[in-house]
């Protein structure tokens, strides 16, 4: 890019107790440039942008923004100077309307200038970001919520827009729409700092990339001239071996779900409607879908946290288990790895070895007649830590002291090493770095090869295409019939994930038509 850079960072260093988050980082973003910030989890990307946005202060080093020294002490100051940020975790209020949410995100003065409602509509039509100011945010899809965040940023006319992993929750179609908006913004002179670890997207969108590893700058490049593999290797600093899916012919049906309907008990939850699926031994069924389309509810039903109406609605190896609780199901050889790591899959304040007792207590003889065997539990925990290369000070560390990705590895290891007949995992590699994700994928494949039936609920299509033998889409609480992975494309999945109501209705009608004779 020609001309003076809009943002320049020089020798930025930031340390937290015990960790160097950023060390001597320097780079610059040009005017109208879409600049990617690449790196694995814990590489220091988030800390870096938090400093640009005024949430944190650098220990040393300096920044200039539009030619002036720049050291925002709080986000509102950064916003005033022209920096906008769309967070990975949205700052939205579900029980308030879109209009109220946007008003809250602006300063009192900004909210008062002109008719805010009209300005929202203007900005949203100009950039093709359709939002209805009077809808409750809780009723919106994740993609729509993101649009609100973007509209909110655009209302204060930023010169630099920071986006933290914006596409991790979008369907492929929504991603395309977002990219058009971003390209348009860039062409109008707004610079974009884009954080992601989806390399194909970065290659399609960004004209420059800065790569961080372990808090240090390791290089910059033009992502359009790189391959996804070369970018990934730059990020992890090692060569990457992708696992290969070579599963034998599937065997008998192990897990079967029939016509399962269940009302959600959450405020803005999704009701499951007539969910039917069957998974054979040696198969990995991937369930794709945008977050908030019934995945949580499906997971609850499969784990047994909420019993089914009829016991026959879920069957394990032909036995009805629809009304069995989680412990009974585990005793029968099922294992589960729910999405929420802290508080659901693991107890934050307990040590790792204690956490093994929670799910592997019976299967691995860690407790006998109500008495804990610390020796066995410690041994089991150590095996998990060794096999999955979990980075931790030891199995006596509390679960909450582990980084998200490391804890995820530990939890996946704990479940997989019980050698279950059926494993159900939600977002198995969410927030896990590329190397660890490959490890988890490899052991999932091993498990299937040994004859287990595996169900993976994930929003990461790359992941599903890598390991699933069949993929099925969940949208609005309805599960589309599964298809072999080889016959699917990202586009066809994306259409179903978008929850195009007509198609869902059509599919439901077709189901009913088939189901009806059976009732007669």
């Amino acid at each position, binding site marked *: 890019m020609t001309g003076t850079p809009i943002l320049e960072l020089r020798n930025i260093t930031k340390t937290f107790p015990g960790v160097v988050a950023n060390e001597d980082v320097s780079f610059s973003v040009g005017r109208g440039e879409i600049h990617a910030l690449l790196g694995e989890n814990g590489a220091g990307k988030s800390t870096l942008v*938090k400093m640009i946005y005024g*949430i*944190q202060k650098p220990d040393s080093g300096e920044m200039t923004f539009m030619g002036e020294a720049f050291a925002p002490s*709080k*986000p*509102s100051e950064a916003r005033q100077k022209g920096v906008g940020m769309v*967070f990975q975790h*949205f*700052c*939205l*209020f*579900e*029980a*308030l309307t879109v209009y*109220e949410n946007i*008003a*809250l*995100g602006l300063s*009192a003065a900004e*909210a008062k200038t002109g008719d805010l409602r009209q300005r929202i509509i203007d900005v949203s039509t100009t950039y093709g970001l359709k939002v209805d100011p009077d809808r*409750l945010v*809780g009723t919106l899809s994740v993609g729509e919520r993101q649009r609100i965040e973007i509209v909110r940023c655009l209302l204060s006319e930023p010169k630099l827009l920071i986006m933290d992993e914006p596409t991790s929750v979008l369907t492929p179609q929504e991603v395309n729409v977002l990219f058009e908006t971003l390209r348009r913004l860039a062409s109008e002179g707004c610079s974009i700092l884009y954080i992601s670890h989806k390399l194909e997207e970065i290659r399609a969108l960004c004209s420059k990339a800065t790569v961080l590893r372990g808090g240090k700058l390791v290089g910059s490049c033009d992502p359009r001239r790189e391959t996804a593999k070369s970018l990934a290797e730059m990020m992890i600093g090692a060569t990457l071996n992708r696992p290969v899916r070579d599963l034998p012919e599937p065997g008998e049906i192990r897990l079967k779900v029939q016509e399962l309907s269940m009302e959600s008990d959450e*405020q803005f939850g999704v009701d499951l409607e007539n969910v039917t699926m069957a998974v054979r031994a040696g198969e990995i069924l991937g369930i794709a879908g945008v977050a908030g389309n019934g995945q949580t509810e499906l997971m609850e039903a499969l784990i047994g946290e909420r019993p089914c109406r009829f016991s026959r609605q879920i069957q394990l190896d032909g036995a009805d288990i629809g009304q069995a609780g989680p412990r009974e199901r585990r005793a029968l050889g099922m294992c589960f790895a729910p999405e929420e790591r802290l508080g659901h899959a693991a107890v934050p304040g307990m040590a790792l070895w204690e956490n093994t007792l929670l799910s592997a207590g019976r299967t691995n003889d860690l407790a006998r007649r109500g008495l804990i065997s610390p020796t066995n539990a410690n041994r089991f925990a150590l095996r998990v830590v060794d096999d999955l290369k979990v980075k931790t000070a030891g199995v006596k560390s509390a679960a909450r002291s582990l980084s998200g990705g490391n804890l995820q590895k530990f939890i996946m290891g704990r479940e997989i090493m019980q050698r279950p007949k059926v494993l159900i995992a939600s977002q198995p590699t969410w927030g896990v770095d590329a190397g660890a994700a490959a490890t988890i994928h490899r052991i999932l494949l091993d498990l299937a090869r040994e004859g287990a039936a595996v169900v993976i609920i994930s929003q990461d299509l790359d992941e599903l295409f890598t390991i699933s033998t069949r993929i099925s889409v969940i949208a609005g609480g309805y599960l589309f019939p599964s298809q072999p992975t080889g016959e699917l494309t990202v586009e066809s999945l994306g259409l179903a994930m978008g929850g195009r109501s007509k198609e869902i209705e059509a599919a439901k009608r077709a189901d009913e038509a088939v189901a009806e004779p059976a009732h007669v």
Partner: protein
Amino acid sequence: MDLVLNILLGVVVAATPLVFASIGELVAEKSGVLNLGVEGMMIIGAVAAFAATVGSGSYIVGILVGALAGATMAFLFGALTLTLMSNQVACGLALTLFGLGLSALIGQAYSGISLPQFPRVDIPLLTDIPFIGPLVFGQDALVYLSFALVAGVGWFLTRTRAGLILRAVGENHEAAHGIGYPVVAIRYLAVMFGGACAGLGGAYLSLVQTPLWVEKMSAGRGWIALALVVFASWRPLRALGGAYLFGGITILQLHSQALGLKIDAQILSMLPYLATIVVLVVISRDRMKMKLNAPSCLGKVFYATS
């Protein structure tokens, strides 16, 4: 006619303390703080107002001191739960126990003293209208204040930016913090407003309703106020309605006791509590609406991260 008028006037007197206490708690809860210490703040308000009135001879001083005492109690609660991040339920219960004990201690010197009747508003001509006059234009100033408060809080919560921010803090404190609102400071203000209101409710008990100081005179009204807020699904007008329902049945059962009904007095005394809760449960049985109005962060401790 006189009996009906007396009953209706009695209802207003019985309902007003609840209106104050519940509207205050409503604001605190909308900001996401569950303060179970309403009973304690009320009783402290009652004894403080009574003592100040006896000491100064001025009702105005008494009322202000009552509100201030309630707010001070609430500040204590805020310091424990917002600054020190203790459990809100436990601290609220402790606040109630503390308030009951402390008020009994302070009140020892004041038992047996009675105050003259609290002045009522008297507008020439208007108050003289039969029936409607005394009912509408002849109440005491605090009754009008309670109505103004309900209207004011309703307007504040739905129509003002500050009210929107308060609701936002109660709905999702992480997000509010992320945008840059001072979550803890806003909660302090809301909790102290709630305390001041509870104090006013207490002052009304000891200055207007009885007007005496009696130990434990709040008699569970703080708890009823708490229940009102939940079952009114955090809407000011409904809380007002609930308070008047409670007041109405309280007075009716007193009169029916006087009439010598053959029902045990204990059962009759139970009625207002029971009926109010039953009616409000029935009104608020739409779970979806209930959840929509309920502040999502109610009772959750807020840790400011980053």
